[in-house]
């Protein structure tokens, strides 16, 4: 950091190297996430609008699957996540990307809402006892909509964290490290949860084969 205190001048280490983080650069003419955060912190609401437009669809898709496919609940989760983001922009640190930070806000609110609606947590052992696979042969009338509905049912039966890990990896295409940052768990835990999530979902989707 180069500080112009008048008349003294001080030079800090950040000027030595040129900071360039491609992970947060959107490329092209679009401002990077880092620029949008900077502008939003300065009170520029249009920058925050751009953040909402850029990351909102993914957050909504994630929230929708986290709360059992209920539109109204997903809308509530995403709205509260963005309100929290606006209020806490000052606390956002560049250690995480804007995307992982926003998804972490979404995840926490989705889990909170699920706990309010479903006070009994589901764990792996309990999971084995519920939701037996469908008995009918689905091959005759399988449609995307039914397939997604079946996956939603299967997802709902997963423990919250397992469901979040699976969605962030398989649908949102996040890396293990990004998921770990988003959910405040270790990358090893991400691997374990993902492995169990894939197994559980594969079992439950097997009748659709």
């Amino acid at each position: 950091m180069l500080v112009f205190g008048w008349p003294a001048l001080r030079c800090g280490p950040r000027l030595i190297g040129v900071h360039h983080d491609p992970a947060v650069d959107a490329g092209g003419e679009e401002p990077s996430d880092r620029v949008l955060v900077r502008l939003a912190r300065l009170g520029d609401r249009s920058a925050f609008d751009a953040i909402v437009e850029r990351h909102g669809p993914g957050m909504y898709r994630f929230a929708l699957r986290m709360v059992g496919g209920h539109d109204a609940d997903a809308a509530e989760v995403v709205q509260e996540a963005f309100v929290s983001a606006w209020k806490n922009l000052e606390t956002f640190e560049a250690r995480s990307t804007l995307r992982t930070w926003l998804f972490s806000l979404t995840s926490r609110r989705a889990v909170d809402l699920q706990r309010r609606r479903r006070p009994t947590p589901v764990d792996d052992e309990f999971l084995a006892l519920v939701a037996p696979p469908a008995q009918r042969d689905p091959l005759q009338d399988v449609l995307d909509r039914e397939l997604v509905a079946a996956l939603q049912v299967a997802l709902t039966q997963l423990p919250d964290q397992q469901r979040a890990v699976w969605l962030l990896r398989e649908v949102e295409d996040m890396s293990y490290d990004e998921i770990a940052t988003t959910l405040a768990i270790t990358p090893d835990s991400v691997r374990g949860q993902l492995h169990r999530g894939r197994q559980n979902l594969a079992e439950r989707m097997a009748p659709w084969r």
Partner: protein
Amino acid sequence: MAVDESSDPLARATEALRSEDDGAWTELSRTILERVRTLVVPAESVVSFNDEGETERGARGSTIRVSTRVLVPALRHDLETPSRATDAIEVVVTDDRCVAVKIDLVGVYGADLQAEGDEVRRAVSEVLRSALGPDPDFDADRDIRVSFVDVVTQDPHRQ
């Protein structure tokens, strides 16, 4: 999307999930933006000075105050150029007075940051004088701190 019945059902369902349209998102985004616009940005009010450097005006000693919510965008507007972007602006208020302004900037690699810093200091001083009048205790040389917190290789307004 047509379903490939020969593939793994979980993979098919996952693919269907990924390619789902945004559905209710467009309408929801409007609601979110409206809600955020109703949120008040924290701010402080800063007392202004008349040409004689006094805060009380007229026989009844009225005062005029300017919100930092007004000062910050005004400062940003006058500080930004193609070769520098504002990273943060802090208006320090003590006892209703603006006692310091801290400006963090992102510059372009290779630019003369010393000259940029001088220019920014002058611009801040002019904005404050225009918005708040002449505060006799405010010393621009002492109370305006300009810091380049980053330098980038391309457009600082995009990077």
